[in-house]
């Protein structure tokens, strides 16, 4: 049995890598995804274009403006002459934040009266707006702490010392890039497995295989070999480039990541096999892969946290292998945890994968017979 699987697997490997277009697809697509999530799909808020209207024109107001500019979060791109002009800049979308330092700002500070600062934020992009507002209050807070205390104040405020674990610089790249491993393995494995089987049927060579002594289960196993090899290779490639080029930290162990990738492959290959049983042509297999892939990614926690989705959607995510594997890769990369913490996810993947795989294999066998 092993002998037959071996020869069939060699045939599959040759067939998969012979096609130049497919070779390119397999190597280029992880690179493109890495590049996009390393450089394009970034949610960090830096260099927010800002308008500054300084009505006070004092030493204090100029110092505050310098603090804004120096923080790296804000870039002052416009100096409007009036509040109306400030409004127009926001309307046109030329700036996202407009800061107005009111007249009497420095006088109030010296007198110990609350000094006024007006901040207008374009809320269209709710995410950036919220984060930018937080930066404003942090900068102003530090600014006021650095000023000499007014006379007669004795009470003391309580404050928080905050520590950020796992991703201390809060870079969105560190969050996204490990997830790319999960994404890219799913995308290529789905297409490679489903299309390999469907092509055999389209071309008619499946009948030739059936007259040989090969059993259906052996055929299925052999068909899984190229996609598994590609999946593992892509995992290694993305990990290497992510760590060496994009400087994403990897705190966990590589063998554990390797093991989990293997478990993850079980589910992905099973889904690929399933798609092959419902598609008649390669075109259909491609479409079905995409149709499955889109919602699977959206409902996996890849980009947006599952906790924030409506309850119904949260239940659906339990059926997605991506959900568990994403927790694992992020755990390995950012948290440096292993089996002792991630065993529930590994177990879930194993159960889900086995179930999907067996179900699809049975369906495949029935369709072949």
């Amino acid at each position, binding site marked *: 049995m092993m002998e037959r699987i071996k020869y069939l697997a060699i045939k599959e490997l040759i067939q998969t890598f012979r096609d130049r277009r497919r070779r390119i697809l397999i190597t280029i697509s992880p690179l493109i995804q890495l590049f996009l999530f390393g450089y394009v799909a970034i949610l960090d808020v830096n260099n927010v274009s800002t308008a500054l209207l300084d009505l006070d024109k004092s030493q204090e107001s100029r110092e505050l403006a310098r603090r804004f500019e120096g923080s790296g979060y804000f870039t002052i791109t416009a100096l409007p002459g009036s509040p109306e002009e400030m409004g127009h800049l926001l309307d046109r979308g030329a700036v996202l934040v407009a800061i107005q330092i009111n007249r009497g700002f420095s006088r109030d500070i010296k007198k110990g009266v609350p000094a006024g600062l007006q901040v207008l934020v374009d809320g269209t992009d709710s995410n950036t707006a919220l984060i930018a507002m937080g930066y404003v*209050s942090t900068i102003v807070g530090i600014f006021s702490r650095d000023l000499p205390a007014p006379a007669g104040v004795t009470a003391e405020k*309580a404050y928080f010392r905050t520590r950020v*674990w796992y*991703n201390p610089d809060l870079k969105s790249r560190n969050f996204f890039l490990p997830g790319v491993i999960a994404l890219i393995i799913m995308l290529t494995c789905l297409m490679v497995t489903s299309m390999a089987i469907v092509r055999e049927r389209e071309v008619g060579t499946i009948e030739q295989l059936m007259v040989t002594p090969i059993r259906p289960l052996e055929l299925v196993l052999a068909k899984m070999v190229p996609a598994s090899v590609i999946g593992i290779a892509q995992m290694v490639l993305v990990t290497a480039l992510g760590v060496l080029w994009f400087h994403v930290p990897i705190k966990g162990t590589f063998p554990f990541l390797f093991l989990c990738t293997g478990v993850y492959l079980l589910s992905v290959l099973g889904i690929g096999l399933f798609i092959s049983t419902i598609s008649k042509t390669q075109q259909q297999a491609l479409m079905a892969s995409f149709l499955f892939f889109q919602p699977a990614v959206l409902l996996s926690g890849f980009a947006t946290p599952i906790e924030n989705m409506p309850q119904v959607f949260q239940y659906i995510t339990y059926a997605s292998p991506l959900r568990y594997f994403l927790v694992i890769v992020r755990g390995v990369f950012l948290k440096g945890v292993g089996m002792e913490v991630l065993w529930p996810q590994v177990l879930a993947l194993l159960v889900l994968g086995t179930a999907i795989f067996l179900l699809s294999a049975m369906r495949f066998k029935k369709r072949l017979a």
Partner: protein
Amino acid sequence: MGLLRIKAMAQKEWIQIRRDRLSLAMAFLLPVMLLLIYAYAITFDVNEILMVVYDQDKGSMSRELSAEFTRSDYFTLVASLDSYEQIDRYLDSDRARVALVIPVDFSKRIRTAKPTSAEVIVDGSNSNTATIALQYIAAIGEQFNRRQGLSPASPTIEVKNRVWYNPELKSRNFVIPGLIALIMSVIASVLTSLTVAREWDRGTMEQLISTPVKPVELVIGKLIPYFLIGFADTVLCVLISTFLLKVPLRGSVGLLFAVSAIFLVGGLSFGLLLSTVTKNQVLASQLGMLTSFLPSFLFSGFIFNISNMPVPLQAFTYTVSARYFVSVLKGIFLKGIGMRFMALEVALLSLYGAVVFLLACRKLRKRID
């Protein structure tokens, strides 16, 4: 140009569309599905932050401080812990994202007006959620100080934040106008990408060539029925967005549909151009999906800030027509601004539409190669 010939062409196309029931159903179902899935799955709002408390003080003030967290709608207390090791375990396994540690002498120091602090640990893996959580935490600190009547030893600067356009900072209001642009560009190019290639595939192109219909008439005739479908899709999307998803539509509805029509002509012509150049249905539909979805998703400013991208990629975004449409849609929906503030975008969209339309006419030469 003969109106009669255009009309005949459009009628022929319409009959063909009507016969393909499945594709016609897809043309209406796909946008609705995409709109709903994306609208519910992509949310950047953070409102269910799981937290643990390690209260070493167990005094009145420390209880007050943790109550301040649970009183806000953003934090859900999952456990009270007794050691740092337990915090490790909770954060490592994703069972909590935030840990509050209150030191032994917290209440005492506050009563004796000494400076005091509590420690907050935040899981930074998801940089975006973490950044927002940090701000909520800072706001809670302020709230606590105010409630306990603790005034700071530094001058107060009152930051009056005003958020325009989306005052509740709902991420749905941010995502959906851009989403409509994304869906429209995909639908537009998918609708027409098949139409000319199909004529070549079926061999009916030769028949068309033998008729007196001119290329311009052919293009216009083919565009009209798809334009009507695309326009109906737009109306459908806008209706769902405003009535079901409750996104405010503040600007002029007439302007919204006028600009959408301009954008549609560009998108449909682009699909037609692809179809003409490739002469192959499969290739045209795949290219259509790829070249419409990816740029409009990544390079339009739909979610990812263009100002965060490397400069060469920022320059590239100017060639993506969806970029202008996204900013127009956000402007009309949320800002309620008129032509005055978006003249440039509308002009560029019209230019793009005209260029692609002319290219499609030129490429569609009536010749058998």
